[in-house]
């Protein structure tokens, strides 16, 4: 796998690599998660080794393997586009693909100094701003410029699309590679669209052809079509010739990826999707001003107002490979999911419903991590579209099935173990020299965290303290007293290792119902620790402007207990944005990453452990995507926001220390696929992530005086 990465490095130009170091990530946080989807795509889809080998061939060599999907023989209509409402002949696509290949050849052989820069730099385009791209290309041809805009994001994107997860993320910084992934989804036009000799005419020709292809489509009921307004905008851009501005500081958000692994058929589909997205964006422009499409919506708006920047195409010496490898369908799957989510955002439920069906079929064909993620997201979208929400029991995760899923997830992935052990280490250190200790656990579940702490207390140098545990749990649907059972088991364990133990359980449907007097704290006698593993995010209210929201009440209550330490572990994700599409995109990347890490565990396929863990995650996905209002309890917020909240509630952060770090690193070695996990220290907090994406963050807090 590293081999493939290296081959792509070989292909990249020196300048691109240098420029990569210089470029600063400027993408806003929502695109953070985007880089993960390509992980999902790559890992889940696998890489076509033949394509890779071909791609690594000598520069200028083209390897063309015709797609097996084009089984219509060029006579029929392209199926995927038909599902989107276009009826386009496959033969037409092929023809344009061939012309693009010709262009590439011309590009390779271009020797003139005037355009040599075109063959050596990367270009980035906004996939949703096709008009701007066309405009910029035309102005480029008319006013050749020599300013260097390094956009080696293309190179990282290529890495992203073609190499294995480890290699690509090691070289790209999160924010930048985010863009790459985004662009990878949206673009894919082959390089070499410029031709110093007659490129401009060819380009015009090509553009006309593309527009012509689209105007053949029928079915006016679907808003996916080119509407007259947008196409006029397109034509309008053709006539404009503004000077490209070079000083645009923000990195371009799209990449024209040379198709070493792209089929030109795919290229065409992506072009068309681009155009479609372009339409939808322009369509929704007046409607949803604050609908920031992560794929570059902001930039899109900027473009419409300001002048387009000069952008370069990628070196045209990449071989083009046409193949139906899973990576392509993975990209398409993501694209479809995003398009469907957009449709849902705009309340175009008919369209969205059709797309969801398509996505389901595609996801089944895809397989791998990406297919599974897509299945869960498609299901959640379907639930949202058709208003079929899961029952209450499913949401509240009370029943024994939920516990079973939790146990399996605990065993399969290191995230929960990391959470427990890190919190335990912090609590242990805080409890040094105390003879009586009291831990309050905000959701006891099966009490898996506490045996390790009891054991550590038993073996500590000064002898074990008297250990008191207060476990809080939700009401059980069948009325059984799980808390008491767990308490008894823990008591038995503590007794067997000679630790004085007492337990009390509280059933509370909402943590804000808990009052300090209930907890029976003995101030001055015992040291109190409050432990919250993935519980605080459930307390965040729909409307944050409310005066006394649940989360504030609970944090005040905790503060009033005057604890020695408060351990908080939360998902490192931004799943509580007000706009659905943002949430969807973030969640897609977050869960793609987690599913990737699950896949890397190399469990036997369809094994109980793997499936249970996936269902566990699938429930979270369902809640984030399909539910709204009080039912949406999975309101994950990133570490920065939690820091702010806790700081405002009167706490200050405690550094977790090197012992916790070492312990976490060692823990990961026990998990298959452990090389992919990363423990990072973030201002005293520890995060565990998959490759460069942190997924779960553990922090410790004490009361500020």
């Amino acid at each position, binding site marked *: 796998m590293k081999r493939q990465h290296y081959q792509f490095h070989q292909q990249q130009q020196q300048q691109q690599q240098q420029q990569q170091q210089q470029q600063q990530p400027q993408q806003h946080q929502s695109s953070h998660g985007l880089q993960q989807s390509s992980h999902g795509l790559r890992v889940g889809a696998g890489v076509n080794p033949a394509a890779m080998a071909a791609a690594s061939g000598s520069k200028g060599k083209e390897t063309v393997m015709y797609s097996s999907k084009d089984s219509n023989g060029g006579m029929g209509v392209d199926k995927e586009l038909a599902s989107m409402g276009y009826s386009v002949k496959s033969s037409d696509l092929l023809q344009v693909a061939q012309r693009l290949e010709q262009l590439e050849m011309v590009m390779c052989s271009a020797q003139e100094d005037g355009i040599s820069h075109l063959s050596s730099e990367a270009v980035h385009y906004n996939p949703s701003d096709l008009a701007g791209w066309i405009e910029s290309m035309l102005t480029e041809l008319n006013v050749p410029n020599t300013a260097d805009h390094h956009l080696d994001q293309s190179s990282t994107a290529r890495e992203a699309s073609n190499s294995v997860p480890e290699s690509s993320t090691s070289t790209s910084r999160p924010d930048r590679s985010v863009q790459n992934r985004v662009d990878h989804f949206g673009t894919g036009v082959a390089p070499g669209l410029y031709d110093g000799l007659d490129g401009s005419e060819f380009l015009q020709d090509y553009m006309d052809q593309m527009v012509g292809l689209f105007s053949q489509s029928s079915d006016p009921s679907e808003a996916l079509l080119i509407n007259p307004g947008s196409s006029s905008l397109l034509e309008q851009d053709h006539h404009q010739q503004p000077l490209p501005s070079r000083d645009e500081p923000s990195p371009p958000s799209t990449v024209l990826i040379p198709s070493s692994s792209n089929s030109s058929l795919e290229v065409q589909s992506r072009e068309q999707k681009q155009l479609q997205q372009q339409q939808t964006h322009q369509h929704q422009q007046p409607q949803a001003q604050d609908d920031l499409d992560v794929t570059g919506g902001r930039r899109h708006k900027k473009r419409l107002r300001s002048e387009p920047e000069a952008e370069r195409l990628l070196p045209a010496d990449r071989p083009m490979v046409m193949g139906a490898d899973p990576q392509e369908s993975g990209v398409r799957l993501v694209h479809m999911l995003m398009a469907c989510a957009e449709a849902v955002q705009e309340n175009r439920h008919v369209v969205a419903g059709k797309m969801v069906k398509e996505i389901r079929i595609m996801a089944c064909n895809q397989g791998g991590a990406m297919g599974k993620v897509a299945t869960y997201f498609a299901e959640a979208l379907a639930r949202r579209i058709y208003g079929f929400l899961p029952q209450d029991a499913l949401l509240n995760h009370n029943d024994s099935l939920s516990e*079973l899923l939790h146990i399996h997830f605990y065993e399969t992935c290191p995230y929960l173990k990391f959470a427990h052990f890190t919190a335990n280490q912090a609590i242990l250190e805080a409890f040094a020299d105390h003879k009586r200790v009291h831990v309050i656990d905000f959701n006891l579940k099966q009490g898996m965290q506490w045996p390790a702490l009891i*054991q550590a207390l038993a*073996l500590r140098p000064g002898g074990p303290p008297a250990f008191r545990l207060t476990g809080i749990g939700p009401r059980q649907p069948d009325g059984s007293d799980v808390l008491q059972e767990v308490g008894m088991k823990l008591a038995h364990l503590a007794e067997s*290792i000679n630790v004085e133990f007492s337990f009390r359980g509280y059933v509370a449907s909402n943590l804000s119902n808990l009052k300090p007097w209930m907890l029976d704290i003995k101030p001055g006698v015992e040291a109190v620790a409050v432990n919250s593993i993935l519980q605080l995010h459930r307390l965040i209210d729909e409307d944050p402007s409310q005066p006394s929201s649940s989360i504030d009440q609970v944090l005040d209550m905790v503060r009033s207990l005057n604890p020695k330490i408060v351990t908080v572990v939360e998902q490192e994700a931004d799943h509580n944005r007000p706009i659905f599409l943002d949430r969807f995109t973030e969640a897609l990347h977050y869960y793609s990453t987690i599913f990737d890490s699950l896949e890397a565990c190399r469990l036997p396929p369809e094994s109980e452990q793997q*499936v249970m863990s996936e269902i566990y995650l699938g429930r979270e996905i369902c809640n984030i995507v399909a539910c709204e209002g009080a039912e949406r309890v999975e309101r994950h917020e990133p570490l920065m926001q939690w820091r702010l909240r806790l700081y405002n509630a009167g706490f200050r952060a405690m550094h977790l220390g090197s012992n916790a770090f070492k312990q976490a690193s*060692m823990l990961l*070695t*026990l998990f298959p696929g452990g090389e992919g996990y990363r423990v990072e220290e973030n201002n005293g907090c520890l995060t565990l992530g998959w490759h460069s994406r942190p997924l779960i963050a553990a922090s410790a807090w004490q009361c500020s005086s």
Partner: protein
Amino acid sequence: MRRVGESMESKVQKVAGREVTAGNSNSHASRAVFGNNVDILEEILKHLDAKSVGIISCVSKGCQQAAESEYVWKIICTHICPSSVFETERLQSLVATMGGFKRLYMNFLHPLHSYSHHKHCSSLNEDVIRLSLSLFSVDYYERRLESFRTRMPPILRSIQALLQ
């Protein structure tokens, strides 16, 4: 996590499968050598590594009895992670309660030790021991929870049915 321990046990069992017949005929012989005094055998075993001890435990019942001894495995644990903590009474009774040194070694100390070995850092010994003990205690707790899980079959079955 349990894979290393299990693979070792399976290896040992493979050897056992081959040697058990030999063992029966040899038991008379081994008793002749050691008598009924397994202590001598323990003293010998404590100088060996885990794999050899596993193999020897297949030779005969007397050998197996000697090889199962906590004393031997405690020494093996100390070999792999030298630390004075193994000598403490508290730790020994704790480990004994939770399932014994052999289990601690096979399932936790051995896999984790290969990590610290890889890092070429002997000061990690204490951390390795601490983490092993934590995981060991969770393992002990889970084993006691097994009874809870066996109440689950109907749900498991229905899930598996859904997955078909």
